[in-house]
């Protein structure tokens, strides 16, 4: 039974990849600790790091608080209950702000105010995350690379680009060396989705961006393509087909059955087939955890369960442009 290929005499690099944390504090903290825990030399975050929901915790006139979580209104009478709720919101990746009734009404009535609040919370969270990475990874020798995804906004993402950062490297649209031999290029934007998310481009445009990035790679045999969008029809991208004309989009049912299809990018697939990199790291489709071989390239989507506080990821061992083995994790 072959689980892994032969060992090389050279010490392999161990890379840990996770993606699509969507603001979950607990999973991010696990991600930062993953390098030490799994004895990985490099940890890579593949995008979609910004949260999707902001829960107002409304302070009532009697001093109690209430919040709507997963369709239920929860009432907190004590500080302990309030602390527990904030902990759950952090796990789920939901931002929160304590406000009184008047402030809640004012913000609710003003979409710009809601938007501003989201940006403030998201930027603050990412800034805190950089601090945490710098603190915990300092002196460990573990490199941490982070890119955005289609759900992340450009101005929010700027919070992870910090001058002088030693451990956390914002790598989007950059070519970086993950060890002495292997390079990685990272692209966070995706092709259009039914949700009309902040960072989407056409297949043609994505193809051009990939070509420009590929030109920076010194040796394709030892290259990693860290592209948020998975390759089309690769099993890393299987999900229900949706009706884009509805808001929110609804699944298409034909003959009583949900239609499944590959929602990945043709441009990403074409680039992998053309350049044959060593490794493809992808995300975007949370429910499509899978590993696929496209030619010589091992492509991985570890999926995401950030809402449960679980860090899904994948450990990959490689040396001299060869994948020695990989292992899905659920930490």
């Amino acid at each position, binding site marked *: 039974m072959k*689980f892994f290929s032969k060992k090389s005499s050279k010490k392999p690099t161990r890379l840990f990849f996770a993606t699509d944390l969507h603001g979950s504090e607990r999973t991010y903290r696990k991600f930062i600790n993953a390098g030490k825990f799994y004895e990985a030399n490099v940890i890579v975050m593949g995008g979609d790091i910004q949260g999707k929901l902001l829960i107002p915790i409304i302070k009532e006139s009697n001093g109690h608080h209430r919040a709507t979580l997963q369709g239920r209104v929860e009432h907190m009478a004590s500080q302990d209950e309030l602390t527990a709720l904030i902990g759950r919101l952090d796990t789920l990746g939901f931002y929160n702000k304590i406000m009184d009734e008047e402030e809640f009404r004012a913000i609710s009535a003003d979409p710009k105010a809601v938007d501003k609040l989201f940006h403030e919370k998201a930027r603050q969270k990412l800034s805190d995350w950089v601090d945490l990475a710098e603190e915990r990874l300092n002196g460990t020798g573990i490199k941490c690379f982070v890119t955005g995804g289609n759900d992340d906004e450009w101005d929010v993402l700027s919070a992870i680009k910090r001058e002088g950062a030693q451990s956390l490297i914002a790598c989007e649209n950059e070519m970086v060396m993950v060890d002495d031999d292997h390079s990685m290029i990272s692209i966070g934007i995706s092709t259009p989705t039914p949700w009309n998310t902040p960072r989407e481009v056409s297949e043609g445009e994505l193809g051009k961006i990939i070509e420009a990035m590929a030109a920076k790679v010194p040796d394709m045999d030892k290259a990693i393509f860290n592209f948020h969008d998975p390759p089309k029809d690769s099993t890393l991208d299987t999900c229900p087909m949706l009706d884009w004309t509805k808001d929110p989009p609804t699944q298409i049912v034909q003959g009583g059955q949900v239609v499944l299809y590959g929602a990945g990018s043709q441009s990403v697939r074409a680039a992998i087939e053309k350049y044959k990199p060593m490794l493809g790291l992808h995300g975007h489709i949370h429910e499509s955890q899978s590993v696929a071989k496209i030619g010589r390239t091992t492509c991985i989507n570890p999926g995401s369960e950030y809402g449960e506080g679980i860090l899904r990821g994948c450990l990959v061992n490689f040396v001299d442009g060869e994948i020695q083995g990989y292992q899905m994790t659920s930490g």
Partner: protein
Amino acid sequence: MATATARPEVFTRKASGLVRVMSPFSAFVYNILTMGLIFPWTYLWAPGALPGGKLVWGILLAMVIEIPIAFVYVWLSTALPRSGGDYVFQSRVFGGGTAFTVVMSGYVIWILQWVALSGWLLSYLGFAPLFLGLGATTGSAAMSGIGIWFTTSTGIIITSILNALVAALILISGFKNYVRFQTVMIVGTLLAFVTMLVVLFLGSPATSMAKIDSFALAVSGTQNFVQTAIDASVAAGVDLNPPFSLLATLLVAPIAWTSLQWATYSAQQNGEIKNARSFNSQVFIIVGSLIFTGILLAILAAGLEKAVGTEFLYVAGAGYWSGVGEATVAGFWLWPNIIAVALTASPLVVVIIGLGYILNSHQIVHNCYIGMTRVMVAMSLDRLLPEAISKVDEKRHTPANAHWAYFIASIPVILLYNLYPGWVGLTLGVTFACGYVFVITCLAGALLPYRAKDVYEASPGAKYKIGGVPLVTILGATGFILGGVMVMMFMLYPQLGLTSALAYWVVFGVLAFSAIWYFLVKNAQKSRGINVDYAFKEIPPE
């Protein structure tokens, strides 16, 4: 720029989302079909092996015992709403060694026996009664002959292998093709079940005996079948009017559990169920389907007693359990559907019941493949099974290799089930083996608040406590004890068929094989620098 919108007391922004494909109602129906309305053992095995036991009470007792177990799965499903079910639940709480050994042995290996059972059901309870019934109602000896062929070892083996192959091909061709076919199977099964209930409740012992005599005469040429069967049963020492026995009634429950323990099977596919994190949805899917099916099975038992009387059920049981040949029709045991077919003179009703049993029998092998291939893919991704098992076909989006592996593995079990003397006695071994999987999962549920605190506290069930103790802990402990008692009954009472030397060898052999496999693979991976425990271990966030 994000487009942010305000909704009542929640602010959202435009972002992509996860869409799940299975509605709670579909999952509810899926569980009902998995519980197997057609599983016949309660109605023949119990009267034969457990004189004095009350069928209806035993079925309802099994349902009541399963309720706390079902609720534990509600908690676990809302806490970990992803595919993989027991393997995921147990690995999160106990780690990989326990989860792999328990699930590999109790599910993946033992359910190969269920594939064989599905083929046996299809041949013996689907095709055979259909052709026997058509032979009897149309006077065609050729039809009866075909029916008899489906009761032979050759007929059952060929049917079983084709049954497994067809299911594998349908699933490999794409899950959508299975879903399309599932609708037909659901309608056909429910129609047959309702038809059978109507036939049974319209019957009475006073009129049924003559109809059964006529059926036996048409099928096998036996005169005065009922009286002959009664006399032979009495001569064999079978008490046709035994006094009520509490122990026998209690022992009916583990047999009825063969069906009702599957109320939790939708947990294998939580990742595809809409609102899987909703407590109410999971209660409807798991507990609702359990109670619905439990009541239906109890009604079927009541219908049988109404149609032929308790005395004749002991005669039918004597044919099965005591080997009284005169209490069979041409060697064919008197299962509930055979009795229903015998009571009707309508070829249409025979066809409806026959097709329903054929469809539900075939549905069972699909359930085996769907559930087990998902577990195998998860194990492969955890590097505990070969990498090829988790390879998914790019165009059809199905784990084709896992399906082929499971089909090939099922063939020797089909042969053993139909050819090896004594193997059929292990029929309820699947109930036992899957039972210990469910019981260990109950323990995982009980320990969830302590062993996976973060996961538990983020779940909607975390707010339910009694006296400061998490309710899932109380339910899990209750389910562990009640389910554990039923599991132990299989090992202690010969009436349940697992006390032979063969049974002990198979039960402990399968467990030992799974544990040794885990140990060997873990060490093989370790020598390559991979720690398989990483697949399950939670990273401390602080």
